[in-house]
């Protein structure tokens, strides 16, 4: 069976999740055992009961006098409970120490900002020109801890990649730190988990963990600016896109430079559009540009109502943004 995308019970793929998983199972097992024991005690206790009755039966049953043996239930019960509780307490503190802070030697640091209802991701390099932004898809090299500085762009969101680590909120006016370290390559689903408005449901993202080489390639590619348009249609498409879409989006290498919406410079390199709402294919893209409100009702990108020709030009251009 394949694991559900947001599962964190059946497996883990990153250092922090690895440290949490056994504790999750441990507490779950204790919980189930406690429930089974109590259910059994209750069942047997009640089964000894007199037949089903009503008021008459109740009134007719003589009273049991108070006896000493009742109290020992409480003392024994508390004493037995103390053992798993104490164990949990100790394990919790130990595990917390493992997962809480980023390790002192971290590979890289990225900035992630939660927006209604998409994720802005910023990478930094040795010099300022090595900085670039992308959206809704975070690439990390495997085997190295990646520190994620979390910022709140508007309201509170929460950053969660269950296979790799637990949640950390992104809060306006405050910088929180999370860190991720993937054990093996893979595509891990993430999701906003703090209620943030109408489309809180559709505020997903993906973490793509790759070997260091592949990651470097990806990074190199992302640093490129958008290719210049080569055909008249593309030129027209670019002009229209920077004029219209540039109100909210930026495409590095063109005049489109607004940061209200996701950076589109390498849109076509992403697997999904609109925070995992749709797969990134031409049909979905066309549909999204024309009528995002139909696919993600309430999203802050308005329907564009382009004419057929405009849409074709825009699509043709946008599809060059690899």
């Amino acid at each position, binding site marked *: 069976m394949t694991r*559900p*995308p*947001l*599962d964190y019970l059946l497996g883990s793929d990153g250092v922090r999740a690895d*440290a*949490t998983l056994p*504790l*999750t199972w441990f*507490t*779950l097992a*204790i919980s189930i055992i406690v429930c089974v024991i*109590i*259910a059994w005690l*209750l069942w047997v206790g*009640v089964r*000894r*009961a*007199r037949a*089903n*009755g*009503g*008021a008459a*039966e*109740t*009134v007719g*049953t*003589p*009273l*049991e006098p*108070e*006896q000493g*043996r*009742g*109290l020992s*239930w409480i003392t024994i*019960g*508390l004493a037995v*409970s103390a053992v798993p*509780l104490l164990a*949990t*307490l100790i*394990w*919790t503190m130990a*595990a*917390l120490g493992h997962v*809480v*802070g980023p390790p002192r030697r971290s590979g890289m640091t990225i900035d992630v900002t939660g927006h209604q209802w998409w994720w802005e991701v910023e990478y930094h390099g040795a010099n300022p020109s090595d900085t670039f932004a992308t959206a809704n898809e975070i690439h990390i090299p495997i085997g190295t801890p990646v520190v994620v500085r979390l910022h*709140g762009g*508007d*309201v*509170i969101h*929460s950053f969660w990649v269950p296979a790799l680590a*637990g*949640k*950390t909120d992104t809060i306006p*006016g405050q910088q929180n730190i999370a860190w991720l370290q993937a054990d093996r390559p893979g595509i891990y689903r993430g999701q906003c988990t703090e*209620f*943030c408005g109408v489309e*809180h*449901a559709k505020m997903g993202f993906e973490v793509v963990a790759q070997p260091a080489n592949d990651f470097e390639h990806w990074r190199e590619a992302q640093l490129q600016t958008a290719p210049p348009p080569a055909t008249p249609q593309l030129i027209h498409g670019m002009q229209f896109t920077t004029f219209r879409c540039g109100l909210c989006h930026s495409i590095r290498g063109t005049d489109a430079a607004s940061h209200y919406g996701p950076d589109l410079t390498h849109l076509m390199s992403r697997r999904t559009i609109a925070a995992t709402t749709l797969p990134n294919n031409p049909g979905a893209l066309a549909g999204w540009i024309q009528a995002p409100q139909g696919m993600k009702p309430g999203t802050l990108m308005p329907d564009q109502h382009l004419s057929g020709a405009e849409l074709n030009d825009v699509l043709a251009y946008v599809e060059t943004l690899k």
Partner: protein
Amino acid sequence: MRQPAYRTPRIGESTPELRARLHAIWETAPGWRGWLSTVDHKEIGLRYIVTAFILLAVGGVEALVIRLQLAGPDLHLLTPEQYNQFFSTHGMTMIFLYALPILSGFSNYLWPLVLGSRDMAFPRLNAFSYWVYLAASIFLYSGFVIGAGPNDGWFNYVPFAEKDYNPGINEDVYALGMVLLGISTTVGAANFIVTAFKMRAPGMSINRLPILVWGTLTANVANLLVVPAVSLAFFLLWLDRQFGTGFYQPSAGGQPLLWQHLFWIFGHPWVYAIVLPAMGMVSDGLPVFCRRPLVGYSLVALGTVATMILGFGVWVHHMFATGLPALSLSFFSGASIIITFPSAIAVFAWLATIWTGRPVITTAFLFFASMILLFVIGGVSGFMTASVPVDWQLTDTYFVVAHIHYVLIGINVFPVVGATYFWFPKMTGRFLDERLGRWNFWTMFVGFNLGFLPMHLTGLLGMPRRVWTYPEGMGWDTLNLITSIGSFVFAIGVLIFFYNCWKSYRSGAPAGANPWDAPTLEWSIPSPPPPYNFAVIPTLASRHPLWEDRLDESEARSSLDRGMTLDEGKETIITTAMDAEPDRIVEMPEDSYAPLLLTIGLAVLFAGLLVKLWLVAGLGGVGCLAALLLWLWPRQEMRERSPEPRKIGEPAHG
């Protein structure tokens, strides 16, 4: 007429003449006048109960719509905005308008009866508390019915609740409504606390209080201290929204997390406040059907209080993911794990009571006994979230939704329904139908577990809460469908319950004074109780006045049909706080319109604030002032003019 300052109360038997005289003194005027002005705790308690049950049905129907929307992936029954208003209103209704008021209703009805008093300490405040609760419910729902209900969840995090992100009137209604409701809760709390300490029958020393009283008392001490936190939080939010202040706005030097602290400093004690009285009901009701006293009375009472004391110190477990320092996380995590102990006391005490007793299976017993299991299931899921690293995965998933429904439905709804089966005969003089009762129980029990047990797994497989829909292929489809089906089965159970109440109220089998052969004071008087409750004030010699002869634990016997008659006015007795020695005779207030008038004044005030008609608000404020002065005007018969009239034989110290 002026009262003499001192009197030796007459001791007498409960005779027909005495009862007739008391009836005349205590009776509420017939017709709408009496209806609007009554201060009888039984009437007020019943109103609380009925109103809260109606709101349970309303909140439940909202939940059913939610479940329809979530029954499968990518459904479009509701728009996202509608969905958000539905789940927020559902949470608000259940937590604030059902869960506490229902318990206040039962306690209001039962307290004077179990304490051996003729009313609560402040009957008019009691009436006021109900009227404001009603007004606040209508106020809070006024937004929802015009499509502007709360839309930020019941705990309403900022900055999403701020005007920048939430420009409609939704959050203004919620904020002001919560401040209004806070007034009701607070005055109710003050009334319960003073009643518990002063209004007990002689001999009901503090170690003889029924656990129900312990639970409600503890809950209300907490309310008195923490409700101001949430009222303030909402008031500051309203200021932010109306006047552009920046309490929660980082751009203005404010702090979004301030909201979360204020809210959860209130919120966590509150979630115990809405279960401790219900646990008290079980502690008092279960033993009756086990035919023996509760095991470990003192420990259970102590556990109740300890739960609350620890409960003041765990609020940060709702904020584990907000980036707080590890040290504070460990502290609150530890405290949340430790809080399991006092809860466990009650669980083992109930189990021991069942094991060492001779249980008789009635519907009430089934509800009480099954609650033990539901409590443990809900409790252990809380224990899991108490561990920080685990909570970082669990928080804000359906696992937490499962936790809250197990604790809320398991420890509030189940005991409350059980309590209704148990005390309905006292309240109405008629039994609820037992056969319907079995159907009621099994549909509720099966439906509930069918619906909510799988929800734990939904959460463990990663389904976030508060999502209006979810895509296919996430592994949640079947689980959600099962949950939706279970919810409807559960709802049918609730429907059977309501039907049973309605039918039995009209034609149930008559029940006598003590149909279950229960041990406590409320069962020593007729069903339904007369307006004055006790014809003579009883004197207690043990915790189980009606079982004394059979348990034979000590020599002393309570005195139930001989005692102070206190029939020279609308009087009852006040006793000392710990030992319940007779202290003073008090004159109880007559029925009064002041509470209703004050409520109307408040409603006008809040409505004016909401629509920003400051003049209307001002008028409401003046109305409140007038009603308050009318209310507090010193009573004629308590006044004296100097020189004091001295009675012969009056002690000189005066």
